[in-house]
């Protein structure tokens, strides 16, 4: 036996049968949102979470706090926005080591804040940054973490009920972290709507100093190579999205999706099998394991609509589905359906939109 490795005891009773929170965890209060500030820009998912966090905090009758980590002098705008998007409190750690995201200093700062101020709920974006950080923080704190939630709620006795797809997206499950604090969860961009921006709304700022000497941090950022803007998928924040599924039959037919998207100035994507077949790259995948979208119009061509896809598109204002199978699950959550071969409908639809838009564009703008 290896007795060198000591782990804090989790108590004797089974986690899933014990209901009462251990005494030392009862002081954990308030809902926190980790505000993802990277290179001067806050990822919108942080504000989406702020909106969800507001609902949880109101139900629990506690404060909603934003946590902003960044370089000295670099956090003011993000802090102001925290309040405008609904936070009551903002915890701020400024340190030169927090200029760029790195796992070591960010985990150290976040863990120290949690241990000192003791939130009951900590929410993070399910981005590369958020997932990298959440996994380290939860393991350091030895608490539960539920990834990629599609819905967050609190139940009658104040526990966080985090719902996410399971079994590869065939079903949903609701997960609790009953006997550990904080209860941690991540949510993907665009799962929740943007909350209202209330200018002039303010709150309490709590500054906390964390000692993070650069000499102690082993990982160094050598450089940052910004993405070129050309042909980069921006599915989550697109107004119109056209996507294809296996019903497009082959890679050549899939081009019909791109042609319609081009006429509409839309983003294009597809369901998971298309990535596996190599028709599209994974950054174009829509669904639970790909991108979550919230467009005003979503056109799904030849997609059957498995749960794994459904959870990625349900936030769309208007879903149009084209599928040959009238019993396809996509017709259960689409608003408008066409039971027909998508490879036949798409060219006609592209042409009809092209005509309509060019005729209307040629007309003097009288309206």
């Amino acid at each position, binding site marked *: 036996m290896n007795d060198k490795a000591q*782990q804090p005891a989790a108590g004797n009773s089974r986690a899933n049968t014990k209901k009462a929170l251990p005494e030392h965890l009862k002081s954990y209060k308030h809902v926190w949102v980790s505000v993802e500030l990277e290179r001067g820009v806050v990822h919108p998912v942080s504000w989406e979470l702020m909106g969800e966090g507001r609902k949880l905090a109101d139900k629990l009758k506690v404060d909603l706090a934003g946590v902003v980590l960044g370089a000295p002098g670099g956090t003011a705008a993000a802090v102001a926005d925290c309040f405008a998007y609904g936070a009551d409190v903002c915890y701020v750690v400024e340190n030169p080591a927090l200029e760029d995201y790195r796992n070591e200093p960010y985990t150290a700062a976040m863990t120290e804040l949690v241990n000192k101020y003791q939130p009951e709920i900590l929410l993070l974006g399910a981005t590369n940054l958020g997932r990298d950080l959440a996994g380290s923080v939860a393991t350091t704190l030895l608490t539960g973490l539920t990834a990629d939630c599609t819905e967050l709620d609190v139940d009658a006795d104040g526990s966080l009920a985090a719902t996410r797809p399971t*079994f590869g997206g*065939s079903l949903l*499950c609701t997960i609790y972290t009953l006997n550990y604090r904080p209860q941690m969860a991540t949510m993907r961009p665009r799962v929740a709507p943007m909350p209202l921006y209330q200018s002039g709304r303010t709150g309490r700022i709590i500054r906390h100093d964390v000692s993070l000497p650069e000499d102690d941090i082993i990982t*160094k950022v050598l450089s940052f190579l910004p993405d070129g803007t050309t042909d980069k998928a921006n599915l989550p924040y697109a107004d119109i999205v056209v996507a294809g599924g296996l019903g497009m039959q082959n890679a050549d037919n899939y081009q019909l999706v791109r042609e319609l998207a081009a006429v509409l*100035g839309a983003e294009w994507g597809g369901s998971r099998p298309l990535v596996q077949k190599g028709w599209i790259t994974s950054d174009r995948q829509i669904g639970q394991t790909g991108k979550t979208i919230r467009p005003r119009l979503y056109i799904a061509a030849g997609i059957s609509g498995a749960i794994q896809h459904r959870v990625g598109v349900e936030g769309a204002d208007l879903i149009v589905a084209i599928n040959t199978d009238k019993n396809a699950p996509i017709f259960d959550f689409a608003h408008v359906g066409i039971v027909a071969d998508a490879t036949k409908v798409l060219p006609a639809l592209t042409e009809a939109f092209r005509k309509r838009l060019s005729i*209307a564009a040629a007309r003097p703008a009288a309206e």
Partner: protein
Amino acid sequence: MHIVVCIKQVPDSAQIRVHPVTNTIMRQGVPTIINPYDLFSLEEALRLRDKHGGEVTVVTMGPPMADASLRKCLTFGADRAVLLTDRFFAGSDTLATSYALAFLIKKVSEKWGEPDIIFCGKQTIDGDTAQVGPGIAKRLNLLQLTYVAKIENFDLAAREITIQRRAEGGIQVLKTKLPCLLTMLEGTNDMRRGSIEDALRGARSEIVTWSAAEAGIPDLTLCGLRGSPTIVKKVFAPTARAEKAQQIEVSDKSMADISEALITEISQRQPGLEQDLLKAVAGY
């Protein structure tokens, strides 16, 4: 050099079906595969070994039948495979999983040397959490580099590694010290076919199989369901929307007419959309 690669055997989830009446998972006959994200990490590990020498040990925790995936890794060219299997691990969440895997890796280190690098998949296709890699790194007190797009430089003598990491809006170039834990981004390499010798060796080799006791897991209350802080309270099928999709009439109509009918329907439901489209077309 010693590299440890953590893999998971997962159901080929594209083929999972839900029973239409009982809403339960129909597991029978669902084939299992190596988690596809793990293969990018395994291939990267094999490349490092081929270039710098040493051994690649593949490990997993799972049911006894997970040895099939380990054997597959041997046919790709891994040098050794270890399966941790025990009823105590049933129902593990990510925290309990990282606990068990961290001790498994410690045991592997005692027997075959401290790893210079540990690889995990970016995430699995069944759990999709991306939490186990960071969990193992934290428990073993290792530096972690997730979502690695490319290994730029690997200097075993200086014990340094430089990588490109996928971040929001760009790529971070990070340099750190060995030992560390990496998760590779998908599409970063193509898994090799494996040589005939490896195929034969994989078929013949013994998979090292350890129970919790044999792996030296110190505290079984931190494993499986008991050691998992998260609890699945309910599993359910999503409720259908109250109304089904409004169908556009298709019988006896031309594709052009169907398209016009659809556009009219879209315009009625999203009145502002067409105007905004026109503005975009006009280049405002």
